[in-house]
């Protein structure tokens, strides 16, 4: 075995440990590589019990969807990553585990655009964020009854048509987004629950169908995923953000069981730290999860995963071809 093969086997073994943690199976089901040149990178940031996702297009355009639960958590992570500007920030919905750190991000990085729904749900903290956006002179973009596209160079984000406002459950006022880069796609459904997902299935199923990767709604809650939704999205990989030992029990066992029964690998920030996915528009891969760095896989892991993947599998997973 050459040194190169050995390194690759070790890398795959590390990933297989993560997979075993999440799905209880022993085989790595997706490729895992060092970053390739010029990809779109989607980074599901480790911000504890909340969401924050950074998108970087090959042309250097940057988008932040949500900013986690704490006042300065997301900004701290972004600064550590060397992010000094954002083209667009989006708030999936008006819950503090998604916008808690956005005021600091807006103040410090002054994005060009701010995307949020105009749902009436508010808190004094959310109102302060809106006033900061106003004071900074940031252009605000809203979802409308029709889908809207945001062009990030070769990457396209589509804002879903907005469902009728749910005055009882803010999760159902989530802004839905689909990222597209060549044949690679990723779905960001906020914390949407059954009624809003049903609306999207009825009104824009073409935006929902056949996504390469699904960011699970509502941190893997039982109300964020169902069989019909998964059957339409048909993701090759599911990811979700949540805090370690969070008191809400995320991800719920029903969701984990459903993903397992559909044989969809599931990556979680509470187990892996920040999850980085990249795509050149054809294939995609997961970059080494931060929390697994430095952990030593056993020789058995190396042998098992090497046998399963190095000879027969392609080095990168090709996205299913799609016409959209």
């Amino acid at each position, binding site marked *: 075995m050459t040194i190169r093969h050995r390194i690759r086997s070790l890398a795959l073994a590390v990933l297989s440990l993560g997979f075993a943690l999440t799905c209880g199976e022993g085989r790595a089901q997706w490729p895992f590589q060092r970053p390739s040149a010029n990809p779109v990178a989607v980074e599901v940031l480790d911000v504890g019990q909340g969401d924050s996702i950074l998108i970087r297009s090959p042309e250097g355009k940057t988008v932040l969807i949500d900013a986690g639960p704490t006042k300065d958590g997301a900004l701290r992570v972004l600064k550590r990553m060397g992010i000094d500007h954002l083209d667009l920030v989006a708030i999936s919905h008006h819950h503090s585990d998604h916008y808690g750190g956005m005021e600091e991000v807006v103040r410090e990085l002054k994005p060009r655009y701010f995307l949020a729904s105009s749902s009436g749900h508010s808190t004094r903290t959310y109102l302060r964020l809106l006033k900061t956006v106003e004071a900074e002179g940031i252009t*605000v973009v809203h979802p409308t009854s029709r889908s809207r*596209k945001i062009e990030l160079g070769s990457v396209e984000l589509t804002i879903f048509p907005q469902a009728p406002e749910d005055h009882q459950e803010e999760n159902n006022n989530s802004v839905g987004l689909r990222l597209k880069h060549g044949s690679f796609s990723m779905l960001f459904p906020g914390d949407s629950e059954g009624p809003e997902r049903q609306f999207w299935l009825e009104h824009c199923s073409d935006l929902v169908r056949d996504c390469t990767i699904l960011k699970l709604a509502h941190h893997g809650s039982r109300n964020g995923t169902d069989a019909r939704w998964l059957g339409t999205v048909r993701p090759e990989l599911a990811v979700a953000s949540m805090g370690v030992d969070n008191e809400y029990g995320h991800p719920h066992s029903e969701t984990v069981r459903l993903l397992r029964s559909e044989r969809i690998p599931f990556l979680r920030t509470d187990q892996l730290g920040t999850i980085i996915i990249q795509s050149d528009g054809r294939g995609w891969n997961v970059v080494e999860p931060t929390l697994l760095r430095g952990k030593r896989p056993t020789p058995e892991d190396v042998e098992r995963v090497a046998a399963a993947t190095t000879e027969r599998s392609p080095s990168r997973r090709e996205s299913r071809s799609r016409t959209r």
Partner: protein
Amino acid sequence: MSTRLSLSLDRFEGKGKEIAVLLTDDGETLNIPRSLLPSGSKPGDVLALSIEHNAAATRELAEETRRVEEKLKDGDPGGDIKL
């Protein structure tokens, strides 16, 4: 309409003991910042917490949010966006 809870201050937690762990009479825990406690509070103290609905403040917040949102909406260029 208001709720009044009787809470026992069980302990302080966190790196700087900045989190107060309160226990309801049913044994449920409620964590709040220590800074919100009356000064001099110590473990073993029994505290009373009243929660009441502030209708006027709720209305004011909703109206202010709606006003700012409407103003921000005016700046939406509409259509597709090119970054």
